[in-house]
């Protein structure tokens, strides 16, 4: 608008550019943005009201629409596509410590029986914990063990590997590597030294056994 009396020192950006700016701001902002908020954030001399009108027209009939909420503006998905959004509201919760430890033991020792998990953790494994891990599809039943009572075993699933970004359970670091990475801060007590010296090796041996290569 070169003919406005209070013409700024700097030319305002072209309208197409202002439209892009409004588009980016509304996209990235969590809450609807009032017109005043747009004016504040855009370069001097911009006219967000006009940019909004253009943008609104541009998104007409698209998968998302520019809508006015009170006196603020925001993008919303088109109402007729709501059926696609059903998976969008997922509430994530942190897994309990008991569940993480149980899961870790299954991952490192699979196939492992419930009794073995309890032996390693030193506490009984609640039914709910195992159920939860099965429901999450992170562990599943493996082959029965050929020991008295033929107990069922647990193994981790492909879903587990996907979730934790692992190519295989074999890629999990062993105790020695955990220690090297500083994930294992605690040091064995001085008295237990000879045992600690052997332990990592044994661990590694266990593991390659476990995954049978």
């Amino acid at each position, binding site marked *: 608008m070169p003919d406005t009396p209070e013409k700024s020192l700097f030319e305002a950006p072209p309208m197409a550019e202002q439209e892009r700016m409004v588009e980016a701001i509304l*996209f*990235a902002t*969590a809450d609807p943005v009032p017109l005043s908020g747009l004016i504040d954030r855009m370069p001097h001399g911009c006219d967000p009201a006009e940019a909004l009108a253009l943008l609104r027209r541009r998104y007409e009939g698209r998968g998302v629409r520019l809508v006015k909420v009170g006196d603020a503006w925001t993008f919303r998905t088109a109402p007729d596509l709501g059926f696609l959004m059903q998976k969008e*509201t997922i*509430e994530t919760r942190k897994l309990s410590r008991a569940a993480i430890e149980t899961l*870790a033991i299954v991952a490192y020792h699979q196939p492992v029986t419930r009794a073995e998990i309890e032996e390693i953790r030193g506490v009984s494994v609640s039914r709910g914990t195992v159920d939860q891990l099965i429901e*999450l599809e992170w562990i599943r039943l493996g082959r029965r063990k050929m020991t008295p009572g033929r107990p069922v075993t647990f193994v981790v699933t492909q879903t587990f590997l996907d979730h934790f970004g692992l190519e295989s359970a074999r890629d999990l670091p062993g105790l020695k590597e955990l220690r090297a990475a500083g*994930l294992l801060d605690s040091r064995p007590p001085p008295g237990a030294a000879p045992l600690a010296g052997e332990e990592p090796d044994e661990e590694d041996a266990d593991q390659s056994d476990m995954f049978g290569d």
Partner: protein
Amino acid sequence: MTGNEFQEDTPSLGDRLAAEALIVDLGAYEGPLDLLLTMSRTQKVDLRQISILDLARQYLAFVEQAKALRLELAADYLVMAAWLAFLKSRLLLPPDPSEAGPSGEELAAHLAFQLERLQAMREAAAQLMARDQLGRDFFARGMTSDVSRVRRITYTATLLDLMQGYARVRTHDDFRPFVLDRDAVMTMEQALERMRGLIGFAGDWTDLTSYLPEGWEIDPARRRSSTAATFAASLELAKEGHIDIRQSDTFAPIEIRRKSRPDA
């Protein structure tokens, strides 16, 4: 070019200042390779044409100076110095055919390769960090709860949680400060469970000691543990509003009774 020989023996003022600066900033170097890379820049040539011999001399001179200034050098720096001294001798002496192992040229070429590679990684890192970054230069969708229809709870954990969890269980045995593996121990949970079943029958004030499990009142260790557990459990029950507690005098028997609830 002709000045080159001369410079090696008597370093110029500039070189000396540079070496001193290096010593002062030793903490800023991440190990000998980093220091060598910095020194190699003073040669102002392509890393592939660098004179490893010059570099070795420069480094050894640096270590000597540091020693003269009684600066503490990490073991890494001394190991590198020893290795460079060995390399220097191999480069200077004619090759001995009877000697096994790689030639001085091969070793020097590998060091040059290492320096070049480290330099390349530094540059790559800088290029990487100079890229437009998410959350700084470009942005993700700000609002993600666009539609709220189905609410599904998913549980999540990170690989770090998993590895730390495993580390925790695999090490707790080592660190159990003491172990309550004695059979003469009653926990408060056990006492609480026992009392919950019993208080329903106790209408009037009853001595707390009558709640001790059968057989536990004789053995002193068992009596001590069960008394403490039962007492703690009775406090818990009082807190929950199930019972009243009284003690008429110091050391007098502690008595409890079920609380009569207004709504019961």
